[in-house]
């Protein structure tokens, strides 16, 4: 749905007599790269500015707020580890948005895939009891990924073969996944010993995923970073990723070229769903030790924001997830010190989301960033 909005590329013809000199081409490339960093950064700054006005209107100090975000999210080794821990599920959740976005699809049902993945992992742990963790833990992850892939892949299949709007369908599927997970957690999979907070049976100490070496952050962060790198390689460095981008840019052209658009849509949505479900797997296997209502913590929704802030670039997801992980990590401190409700972070995130989307309109408008505006004086660049 959302067409790729990057600036037009350089002409590719090798024998073009009007081809601009190499130095100009490098400058043009640099300018576009700078633009795609400067505009989102400016938008985030603008978002913080509007939020500051909101705080001033409430009689609170924006500087105190920023200070608490720094101290709660980034200022100490403890805060940094807390932020990284929260960034881990956001990496996976953002990939669930960013991968389908390559095909121009807006998928917002990651929350359901996360919860379903967690429940699938916890359910898979039961028949695997007694097995070596080296075998059982990957099988649990696989069960989670399969559940998520089937769930979001189904949204892709409905889109590709039935023309069902994927944005609405994915959110509906998310609500259905939440209901199904609640049903399983409070029914078939419920541990009779969990009285006040219905939960599945614990997966057992042996199956718990530990921390990264030298850190107090679980392996979800490491695998999440690897997943983002792999997603970048897939979308930017392979023919499949290239085909997906063509289909996202111009569906009809892709079909005329004979690209398997339907299979691409199903694969990318399924891959995104598998990623989101891995976030649920790590929440169960590295944090909670069983599946319960805490799985539904809103990572899927924050992941949407992360992906849009990163403009669906898997590499850019890394710093953005870290930033938002830090903001969310400081939420408790902000509540206690400034007497603000826990939804404060939601207001800030909503504002950032809006401002970043509005900033899309600024691309190609600033002369230093826009080679096509230089062309008025020099030779044609693009």
């Amino acid at each position, binding site marked *: 749905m959302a067409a790729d909005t990057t600036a037009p590329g350089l002409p590719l013809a090798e024998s073009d007599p009007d081809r601009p000199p190499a130095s100009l081409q490098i400058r043009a490339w640099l300018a576009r790269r700078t633009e795609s960093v400067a505009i989102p950064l400016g938008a985030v700054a603008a978002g913080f500015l509007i939020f500051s006005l909101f705080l001033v209107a409430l009689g609170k100090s924006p500087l105190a707020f920023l200070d608490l975000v720094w101290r709660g999210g980034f200022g100490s080794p403890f805060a940094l580890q807390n932020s990284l821990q929260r960034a881990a599920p956001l990496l996976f959740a953002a990939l669930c948005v960013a991968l389908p976005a390559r095909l121009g699809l807006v998928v917002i049902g990651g929350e359901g895939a996360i919860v379903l993945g967690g429940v699938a992992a916890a359910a898979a742990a039961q028949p695997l009891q007694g097995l070596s963790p080296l075998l059982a833990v990957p099988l649990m992850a696989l069960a989670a990924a399969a559940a998520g892939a089937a769930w979001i892949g189904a949204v892709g299949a409905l889109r590709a073969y*039935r023309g*069902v709007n994927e944005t609405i369908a994915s*959110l509906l599927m998310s*609500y259905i996944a939440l209901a199904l997970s609640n049903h399983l957690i409070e029914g078939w999979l419920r541990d009779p010993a969990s009285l006040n907070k219905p939960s599945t049976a614990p997966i057992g100490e042996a199956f718990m995923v530990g921390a990264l070496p030298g850190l107090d952050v679980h392996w979800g962060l490491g695998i999440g970073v690897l997943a983002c790198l792999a997603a970048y390689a897939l979308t930017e460095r392979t023919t499949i990723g290239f085909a997906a981008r063509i289909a996202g840019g111009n569906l009809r052209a892709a079909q005329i070229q004979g690209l398997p658009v339907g299979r691409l849509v199903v694969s990318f949505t399924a891959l995104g769903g598998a990623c989101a479900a891995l976030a649920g797997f790590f929440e169960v296997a590295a944090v909670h030790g069983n599946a319960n209502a805490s799985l539904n913590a809103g990572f899927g929704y924050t992941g949407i924001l992360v992906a*849009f802030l990163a403009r669906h670039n898997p590499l850019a997801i890394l710093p953005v997830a870290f930033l938002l992980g830090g903001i969310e990590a400081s939420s408790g401190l902000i509540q206690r010190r400034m007497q*603000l*409700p826990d939804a404060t972070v*939601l207001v800030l995130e909503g504002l950032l989301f809006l401002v970043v989307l509005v900033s899309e309109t600024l691309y190609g408008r600033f002369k230093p960033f826009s080679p096509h505006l230089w062309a008025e004086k020099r030779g044609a660049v693009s």
Partner: protein
Amino acid sequence: MSDDLGLTTVLLAVIGGAIRVSTPFLFVSLGETITERSGRINLGLEGTLVFGAMSAYATAVMTGSPWAGVAVAGLAGGAFGGLHGFICRFPRVNDVAIGIALMLFGSGLAFFLGKPFIQPSAPPLPAIPFGFWSDLPQVQAALRVNVLFLAGAALALFLWWAFRNTKAGLIVRVVGDSAEAARAMGYDVDRVRLLATATGGVLAGIGGAYLSLYYPGSWNEGISSGQGLMAVALVIFARWNPLACFGAALLFGGAGALGPALQSVGISQGYYLFYAAPYVLTLALLIATSSPDRALTGAPGELSLK
């Protein structure tokens, strides 16, 4: 629960529930119909619904008047819709994405401002007891119809007529079907869409007021849980026809009432699955009414809904 009484109770509760639960669906879907007829889609109505519920409840608590709450919810909804309409006039800004952002922003702001109002209780909106002739309390309960439901039904009829027979209705349709044709006729496309989206927001805000001031009749953070979004899907199913929206809203209301109705007769097994019934129904209807190779019949030409 093996006797007939159980079944009758459930049936009555579903019929009553269809009337009771359908009102927010009706208002949001009528609002979204106006917006989509002008060529834009606003997924943010979910957030508007939640914000409307919060602002109506807070106003009713503070002033003691539920109708003041409805008015404030409508105004707040109009502001959210107006914001969507204003932002989307900029080039390369995607209306679907803005809708998602407004969905998160609207709910976030409602949770933020609504924290102090979760405890106090607000005066409810009045209802008319159409079930006075019956001695059965179930029948009486089922036929207690809220004023806003009747207003919504009248509005559906009016919009159906207005889209065909008034100048404003025709302008909205022209803008939605072909922006170029509308521009050639001298209409300001962006302004028409701004007004259509703001009007849609007003109606969604009123739908939210119904949620918090009548049924379920309290304010909490889970009050909507996707009803605004289902209403948007319902518009597609209703083919952008206000009268069909009314029928579809009743159907959705019945599906939404199924879970609580079964629980009221003591069937709590699979409660969560029945709770999912409206979502499953919405998805099934979306699948049934979509088509892979031809455009949706009756869809406004400018709509970016593929």
